[in-house]
C-alpha cells in the first residue's frame, strides 16, 4: 500500500484546501444568516435584485465568477486596491483569494438552506417572546437562532463541501500556485496534466471523497442531535 502514502506536496494541498474551506465557511456564515433573514422576513424594493445577486454564482459559469472577482478584488480592482490600502488585505494570488472565491461560490447554497429554515420558524413563537419582554434582537438570539440551528449547520456543511470542491472560480481568480492557492481540485487537475500523475490524482481523489463523507456524516449526526434537542 506504499502508493497510498501522500507526498509532502500533496499534504500541503490537502491542508490548504481545508484551511481555505473553513475560512470561507466561517466568514460567510454571519453574512449568510443576515442575508437569509432579510430575504425570508423583509419586504423591500430591490429584494428580487438581492436575491438574484446572491444566486448569481450558482448560475454563472465559475470561470465568469472568478474573472469578475479578479476584476474587482484584484490588486488593481476597485475593491481589491481599497482593501489593500486600508487594511493590508490582499486577495490576488493568495490563499485568502481562494477562500473568497470559495465563499462566494458556496454562498447561494448556504443562504438557501438557512432561508428555508427561517421560513419554517413559527412567527407566533417570536410574538410570544416579545410579550414576555424580549426585544427583537433578543427574540432573534434566544428563539429564532436556536430554532434555525439545524438549517445553519446544514448550510455551513453544504458550503464547506462546495468550497472543498471549488475549482473554476478559484483557478481563474488566484491561479494554481502550490502552497499558496493550489487547493485539492487544482492539485488533482495538475496531476492529470503531467505524465505519471495518475497515482497522485487518485490519492487526492480518495482524500476528497473521505473528507466529503466525513463532513456529510458529521452534519447528519449534528443535525439529528440538535433536532432531538428542539423537539424531544
Amino acid at each position: 500500500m506504499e502508493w497510498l502514502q501522500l507526498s509532502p506536496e500533496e499534504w500541503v494541498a490537502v491542508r490548504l484546501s481545508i484551511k481555505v474551506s473553513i475560512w470561507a465557511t466561517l466568514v460567510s456564515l454571519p453574512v449568510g444568516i443576515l442575508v437569509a433573514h432579510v430575504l425570508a422576513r423583509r419586504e423591500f424594493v430591490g429584494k428580487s435584485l438581492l436575491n438574484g445577486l446572491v444566486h448569481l454564482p450558482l448560475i454563472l459559469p465559475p470561470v465568469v465568477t472568478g474573472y469578475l472577482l479578479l476584476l474587482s478584488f484584484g490588486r488593481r480592482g476597485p475593491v481589491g486596491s481599497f482593501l489593500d490600502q486600508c487594511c493590508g488585505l490582499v486577495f490576488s494570488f493568495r490563499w485568502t483569494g481562494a477562500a473568497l472565491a470559495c465563499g462566494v461560490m458556496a454562498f447561494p447554497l448556504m443562504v438557501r438552506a438557512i432561508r428555508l429554515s427561517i421560513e419554517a420558524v413559527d412567527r407566533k413563537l417570536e410574538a410570544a417572546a416579545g410579550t414576555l419582554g424580549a426585544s427583537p434582537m433578543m427574540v432573534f438570539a434566544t428563539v429564532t437562532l436556536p430554532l434555525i440551528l439545524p438549517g445553519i449547520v446544514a448550510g455551513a456543511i453544504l458550503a464547506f463541501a462546495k468550497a472543498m470542491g471549488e475549482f473554476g472560480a478559484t483557478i481563474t481568480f488566484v491561479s494554481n500556485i502550490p502552497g499558496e492557492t493550489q487547493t485539492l481540485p487544482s492539485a488533482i487537475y495538475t496531476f492529470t496534466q503531467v505524465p505519471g500523475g495518475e497515482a497522485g490524482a487518485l490519492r487526492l481523489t480518495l482524500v476528497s471523497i473521505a473528507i466529503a463523507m466525513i463532513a456529510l456524516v458529521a452534519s447528519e449526526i449534528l443535525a439529528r442531535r440538535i433536532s432531538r434537542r428542539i423537539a424531544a
Partner: protein
Amino acid sequence: MGIEVAIRHRQGDFMLHVTFASAGRLTALFGPSGSGKTSIVNAIAGLMRPDSGRVSVEGRVLLDTGQRIFVPPHRRRIGYVFQDARLFPHLTVSQNLRYGRFFTPPAERYAEFSKVVDLLGIGALLERRPAGLSGGERQRVAIGRALVASPRLLLMDEPLASLDDERKAEILPYVERMRDEAGIPIVYVSHSVAEIARLASDVVLLSEGRVTAAGPVEDILPRADLLPAGERGEAGAMVPLELVGQDDAFGLSVLRSSGGEWRLPRIDAPAGARVTVRVRARDVMIATERPAGISALNVLEGRIAAMEMAGDSETLVSILSGDDRLYARVTRRSVGQLGLEPGKTVFAIVKSVSLDSAVAARR
C-alpha cells in the same frame, strides 16, 4: 384606573370600532368568532397596531395614535396566554417559565417562581420539554410563563378553546385561583357563557367589531337578548350564596341566599364560604302557590319585578327574591294562564341538578 381601550381599525372588510373601560379583576371579552375579540387583545399587547386609538393599563398609556405613542410589545409588560400555548420547543418547561423573568427589571419582579409553580401544579413537569406535555399541561405552563414575568396585566385569549371538557375542568380552578390570588387584572377572551359566569367579574359583549354591552357580569348575563343566538339558553341570574352546611347523606350542600335556602350538589368548602351560582333562566319554573310533592329542591319565594318579551312565544320574568334577582323564561301561554304580572308573589323553582356545573367560588 384599570384598563381603558378605544380603538378603530380596518382589516379588509372588517371594521373594529370599540370603546370600553373596566376596573374588574377579570374582564371577559365575549362574542362570537369574528367579533374582534382577539384583535382587541392583540392591540392591548401591542401585537397589532390599530389605525387609530388609545389604550391605557393602570394609568399607563400604551398606545395613543393622537400623540404618536406606541409602546412596543416587549416594553409593555403585559402577559399573554395564547390559545395555542406557544411554548418554546427548544427550552425545557423550567426554562420556558423563567424566560420572561430574565427581561423583567429586578425591582418589578413580584412573582415568585415557586409560588407560580405551586399555584398551577406544574412542579413535576419542570424538566420536561413542551413536546411531551398534554394540552392541559401546556396551557398551564403557558399561564405560568406569563405570570413569572410579573406582568401588569394578563391577557388570556380563549386559553381553554382547544381543550376537551375534562382538560377545561382541570384548568378552570387554576384560573380562578389566579384571579383571586395573583392580584393582577386579567382580560379573558371567551365565547362560552359557562366560562364567563364562572370566571368574570366584568363582561364586554362584542358583536361584529362593536361593543354591544359592557358591565358587571351580574348585569350582563341575565340579558339573553344581548347574547349571541347560540348562547341565549345560557342566560341567567348570578346569585350569591353562603354555605351553611353539608347534607352528607345525599351528597348535597345547604346554602342560603337573601331569599331562602338552597340545596346544591356538594361543594367542598367550609361553612360560611361564599359562592356565586348561575341560575339559567330556562331552568327556572314559576308557581303561584308554594308547590307540594315536587322533586325540585329549591323553592324561592319572591315578587315579580318586571316582565319582558323575549321572542315571539316567550317572556323573561324577573323575580325579586330577598335582595337577589332571579330570571325565568316562560311561555306567553303560561303567563296568561297563571296571571303573571309585576308585583305578584310567586315561587321560583330550580332543580338542583341544573346547577351542577354553574357554581363559581368567589371571595
